[in-house]
């Protein structure tokens, strides 16, 4: 743990800016895309699997290994399931062949 004050402050700036980006990006979404967007965002926070992998990399002893394994399993479910289910939802939105391209 060598979190210097500078590192913390940088992280704080990044946090604030990312929050603004998250807010701005989503504030324009049409109602019919609420669910796929929720599901897609859900997949994105599956990046926690990376955190679980880092735990795994430094795991020693049975407790930590079990925790790491659990974390990786749960995180992977989140990532894989999240992106696949979102893709399935969005697949439904594709046009049928006969449709005009331009519409909506």
């Amino acid at each position, binding site marked *: 743990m060598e979190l210097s004050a500078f590192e913390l402050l940088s992280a704080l700036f990044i946090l604030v800016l*990312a929050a603004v980006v998250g807010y701005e990006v989503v504030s324009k979404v049409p109602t019919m895309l609420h669910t796929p967007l929720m599901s897609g965002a859900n997949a994105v926070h599956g990046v926690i699997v990376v955190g679980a992998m880092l735990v795994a990399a430094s795991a020693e002893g049975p407790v930590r290994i079990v925790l790491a394994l659990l974390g990786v399993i749960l995180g992977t479910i989140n990532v894989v*399931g999240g992106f696949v289910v979102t893709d399935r939802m969005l697949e439904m939105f594709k046009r049928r062949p006969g449709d005009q391209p331009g519409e909506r």
Partner: protein
Amino acid sequence: MDTLQVLTYLVWLVASVTFIIALKFLASPKTARTGNLLGAAGMALVVAWTFFTSPGMLENWWIVIVGGAVGSVAGFLGAKRVAMTAMPQMVAIFNGAGGGAAAVVAIAEYLEFADHGDGLLPLPFVIATLLGAVIGSVALTGSVVAFGKLQGIVTSRPYMLPGQQMITGAMFLALFVIGVYIVGFENSIPLFLVFCVIALAAGVVLTMPIGGADMPVVVSLLNSYTGIAVAASGFVLGNYALLIAGTLVGASGAILTQLMTKAMNRSLFNVLFAGFGTGGGAVAAGAEGEEQLREINAEDVAVLMAYGKRVIIVPGYGMAVAQAQGPVRELMDLLIAKGVDVQFAIHPVAGRMPGHMNVLLAEANVPYDRLKEMDEINDDFADTDVALVIGANDVVNPSAREEGSPISGMPILNVDAAQNIVVLKRGRGTGFAGIPNPLFSNEKTAMLFGDAKPSIEALVAGVKQA
């Protein structure tokens, strides 16, 4: 800082940018699918990079491989097998998994550093770890309860413990006291674990009193929570990919939750703490049972529509339950072929998740441009020959316009302005708000009872002959 570390930061940056673009693209129909794929690509990049470059992975690679394999199979099968109507449950489960992972990571971090640390840990680190643990735990159990309620395993009625408020209060107090103690006085692994257990319990206690109808909002909120837990974890690990991705989801989930409650004309506070969709339902349903409702048969409805100029179809939760979207599409095609102008009126909270109707109708290949949002179509009901209400109830309930109803003030579809109203439902069941619907006893209204799918199929047969 060596080159590998610099490259790691750049990988994080690239992944973060793909996540941002993914969310942005998901907000527009044309680009949504690309956006999702892009997000997955960014995720693959950062996962692969972490796997191949993290020191220590040489020894423990099997954890990642085994865990990854198990998780992939479970996630993939779950996502592929789930029925369209069960998607909200599935999202809840995936979100719970993410929350659980965040909690597990927070616990591991705490163990790791509580072992090494002499005396107190640096303040921001401990606070972020505790935050990740508590929020991740709440997201985990809250999502599981939400899943149970949506799936019908747990009662969808608001369920209050005796002394609910006392218990909730006591839990928060305990979390706060333990948190302060760990931050300010002493590292204690047992206390930390107690902290996590209380948080897990809190997730259940907070979610049980919320009615099943409000679960999508709750899932969205818990999604935002998981994002925050992930961001806290990124803060502790000094990992900017986690920090940015978590914050993005935390913020966008919060907005999305607000958009959803707004579409239901309620406040978030009201959703979380005022369990509606409740008790009243049974009573009200009884009351409605007394009234005389005018019935109609499928042939008559078919004729009414086939010779009308304009028909507006109002789908609701019942259409999803009956999986009637395919036949509905067929009905639309037949009517259009007869020169009838057919539109769909999509209420923002019809069904059980936002966009539920759009997803189902798109699945059945109904073209986008026939799906009209409420504001767009509400004025058109007045010169509509038939409003065909398929398993919708609350979203067409005129008592929303009066004071004193649980749904007062919710904007509704002006179905009652149409010349004829035909309602398809199985019986005298109420909607999820559990309140009677005066529309059904309106003199312009006729009821076509039965499961929506066979009813629509009967209409299709009828229109063919008409």
